[in-house]
């Protein structure tokens, strides 16, 4: 494969640049929040991660449907890539959320609706990749990954509502209102930064998967010459 500048490298570099700018504004330019103080600055990476994790899981769901429909290796690679990148963002999301909980509520974990839902989401999609790793035949692996992704994604809204009801007797934790314009700006910038980075990651991951598929895709052996016998036709 030739080493040329590919479209996805552009996304990667742009994402990296935006992430630096957004984080700089979030850390040093934006004012501290009224009640949360400096801690609120975690939001500038936390919320973009959350938005993008959801978006990418949704992409995985859509890719899975297309993959099941078309049986094309390309869509299977995209499904896997989206699921894996979603899991990475989801894991980061949980760590940030945990730090946020420690800073504001004094505990490392709080059964907050969104935090709990994202933990369950992580387990759901980790299960998909676990199942995938156990299937050796490529066709079946693609089908089963798609099926498990669809089944897992459909569960997300159910889990969300369920956790909300489950918690309804407790008070709902308030999230800081981002009113100052200098708070909205880094949030937006970082949202796009992480989206672009995620696109780069998905492209890389999908390429890895496609390359693996190609390795498996051994050419049909040469046609052997018939060795005599009589033809009845």
């Amino acid at each position, binding site marked *: 494969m030739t080493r040329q500048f590919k479209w996805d490298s552009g996304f990667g570099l742009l994402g990296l640049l935006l992430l630096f700018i957004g984080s700089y504004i979030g850390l040093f330019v934006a004012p501290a929040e009224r009640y949360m103080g400096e801690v609120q600055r975690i939001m500038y990476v936390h919320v973009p991660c959350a938005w993008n994790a959801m978006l990418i899981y949704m992409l995985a769901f859509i890719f899975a449907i297309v993959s*099941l429909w078309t049986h094309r290796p390309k869509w299977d690679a995209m499904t896997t890539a989206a699921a894996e990148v979603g899991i990475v963002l989801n894991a980061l999301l949980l760590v940030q959320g945990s730090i946020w909980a420690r800073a504001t509520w004094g505990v490392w974990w709080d059964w907050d609706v969104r935090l709990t839902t994202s933990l*369950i989401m992580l*387990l*759901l999609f980790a*299960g*998909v990749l*676990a*199942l995938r790793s*156990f*299937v050796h*035949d490529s*066709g*079946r692996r693609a*089908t*089963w990954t*798609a*099926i*498990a992704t*669809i*089944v*897992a994604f*459909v*569960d997300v809204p*159910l*889990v969300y*509502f*369920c*956790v909300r*009801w*489950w918690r309804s007797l407790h008070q709902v934790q308030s999230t800081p209102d981002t009113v100052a314009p200098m708070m909205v700006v880094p949030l937006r910038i970082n949202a796009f930064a992480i989206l672009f980075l995620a696109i780069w990651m998905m492209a890389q991951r999908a390429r890895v998967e496609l390359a693996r598929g190609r390795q498996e895709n051994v050419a049909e052996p040469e046609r052997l010459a018939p060795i005599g016998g009589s033809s009845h036709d």
Partner: protein
Amino acid sequence: MSLLSQAMTVVRKDLLLEWRGKGRLISVLLFGVVTLLLFSFAVGPDSTLLRAAAGGFLVLALLLSSTLGLSESFRVEQEQRAIEGLLLLPVDPIALYYGKTLSNTLFLMLLAPVLTPVGLILYSVQLDLKGLAVLLGLWTLAAAGLSAPGTLYAAMTSRLQSQDVLLPLLLFPLVIPVLMGAVKSTTLILTGDPMSQVGSWATLLASFAIIYWSLCGLLFPHAIEEGI
């Protein structure tokens, strides 16, 4: 109509197998009872605490036993590849799926009449007949919800070496809504339901069951395209 009769043939066959292999059913039941017992050791002999957690423990025992029952139901199919023999017949895969799912639901519902009284006694909870009836209804919904994705995943993992690990790994996070719905509503019935919230939890259980019965029915034929 033939879809229905094919599905019912599968159910009848499974029930017959379950009846012949009573040992399996009894083992799963005993497993459930043992779990109930273990939970009470985890909380200690504090009876107020136990009573408060009784609903949760009952549902957890059901959930833990369910994976055993689900993987058993496909071990029987794989032993001499009987399922392939069924797939070779002109049977609609959808009939096969709903037959297996229904028989798994029935199997899980069989657990309730044994586990509930044991749990009630162990955790010293009082319950009138009406409560018992409501509880049974809720468990039916929970069993239906569990077995829909459970049957799909049990079928998919039935030929993989690590089924014992994979099935719970896939199933447990997925059925958290069922778990929560069943735990909450069971607890409300056992400890009183002043704000009559049981109804909304039952709705949640029913919606989960409906969504996954339809979704997995659509997906199952794809899953077994190349046999199981």
